[in-house]
């Protein structure tokens, strides 16, 4: 768990995305290793590490709500 400076030459036009949220990473990123999978994540700030673990917990509770192409809300 450490802040890492994102050193990018001025002529480099690549874009860096937060591995968890998709937000842009500008200047520096927070790097952490998942405590179960050992996967390394680059994220925008330490609060996203906390979000990562919260999401793991919540995603395990997701039910299959998709209407598979039929809008749930259309009433016709």
């Amino acid at each position, binding site marked *: 768990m450490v802040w890492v400076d994102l050193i990018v030459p001025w002529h480099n036009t690549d*874009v860096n995305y937060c591995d968890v*949220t998709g937000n*842009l990473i*500008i200047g520096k990123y927070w790097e952490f290793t998942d405590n179960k999978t050992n996967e390394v994540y680059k994220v925008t700030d330490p609060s996203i590490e906390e*979000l990562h673990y919260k999401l793991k917990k919540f*995603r395990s509770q997701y*039910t299959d709500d998709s209407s598979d192409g039929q*809008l749930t*809300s259309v009433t016709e």
Partner: protein
Amino acid sequence: MNNDTDQVDRVGLSLLYNRLKNICDEMAMSMMRTAYSPIFSEGLDFSTLILDKRGQLIATAGLNPAMLGASLYAATWVISEVGENNFNKGDVYCHNDPYRGGSHMPEHMLVTPMYIDGNLVAYLGNIAHLAEIGGMAPGSFAADATDIFQEGLRIPPVKLIDKGEPVQSVWKIMLANHRTPANTWGDIHAMLGSLHVGEKRLRLLFDEIGIEKLDLAFEQMIDYAEEYMRSEIEALPDGIYYGEDCMEDDGISDRPYWIRCRVIIDGDEVIFDFAESDEQAIGPINAPYVVTLSASLNGLLYVLAKGVPVNAGITRAVKVVAPAGTITCVKLPGPCVGGQTEFQPRIMELIQGIVMSQIYPERTAAASGNTSFNFLFGGVDPRNGKYYAHYHFEAMGWGGRKLSDGNDAQIVPHANCRNTPVEIFETKFPWIHHEYRLNDLESPGIGKHRGGYGIRRVMEVMGEVITVSALVERMKFKPWGLFGGSPGTNAKLEVKRVEDADYQTFQEVYNLVSPSKFTNVRLHKGDLVRITTPSGGGYGNPYERDMYLVLNDFDQGFLTKEDAKSFYGVILNIDNSLDVDSTQQYREEILKEV
């Protein structure tokens, strides 16, 4: 103000916040009155911003909520990328890069630092939609673009003004790549003027309050917004809520793209998780991260927190998860011009309507027409021989809600822009109107509160050739109703060429992949275009609609007697008065059958 400490009390904060908002409003008026293009002067497609010295949003005129995400993040990223120490008094940075915090490329952000006695005290900014920025289609909305390079000139954060002097090389590149450089020149100068107005007014406020105290008040305002949001979220029942909606196609292939959202209420925080959404589209309907953020916040603000100051504090209790490579967070070089205008309202209403109706039904609304109905055109004006290009958006019906019918003929809710009057339209561009009216030929979504009416516009081409493009939604899927209300109606875009006997869709005439998204169709003098915008969905059981409202719709010519009975169970007498007893009896019978 509380003079005993450096803190400002709540009343003082409220007054101060309103003064800051007034400065933003004055900046906006300045832009509106000095711009060259109708999209500024009539459409009001812009926002003005005050940011603290850390780049955090403090106040905005809030004319265009669609720009909220960029307002919150883009300036911060510009400052971070440029480096605070590299700013000088009189500098103005410009950028429009969706891959640097922008929403889509037509929207340009200007940011300038403000110094007092050599110390940085704040930044001022604005974001505005330039009507033409080059690319493959006049009006810069290439509905069949497959990468961002086809969408116009992309500008990373660069200095447009250096210590008060124009950076000519940057201006020259920009003006050389836009089809209507005179408008770009005028509109960007309107933006620069607005920054000057803002700086003058904010300087007076700093002089009056003091630098340290006002800076502390900025922090207090942000903390207050966070506290307010957290208290509103905490009042909601914890849980995981689901909703989905789709973009009907991307202009490249005939398939829908699905947005799937889990809204997780967890104590005083909320997470919007879009990870199950479809992969990013080939065509330009994708959203950059800030657009999905903006839509999520707007969907939430629509239902909660009516009095919350809109500043950096509103994001602290909210997390938006939009994995890169999905339609909710486009990866370079994906195109995304339609993300801001079509995708954002879809997410916003998905959250405020489909998801929040499960939690807070009395504060939600059925779907609006939910398209900006982007209609772009350009050519040479026969009246003066000059090239013109225009980005036009169209009004439609909003969804019915708990206490009232949906609004008629308004721009899509997330954008809050204004209709352009016919007189301005015809003065600026070589079209002549045959018709511009509420579309009362089709009923909006019926319900206890019905949807609002869309519009119908018929225009004739007056130039020799006009090149038109469109990026529209809701031609295949209708705007949904809520709680027993029925869906609204679809959008239509039709053409009747001089040689044709009747109107047909553009898709039929020009053999297009999509009925709603196409680029660079050439129309000729005398051709007619008919625009029909969608109406809103209905809210609640139509048999519970106040029978006097039905009578009023009949009197206005919106309903026939037969419609009144079949849609709403309302019976009118031969003299067109209301038959109250028969109506009650008829409705009771119908409700018993249900």
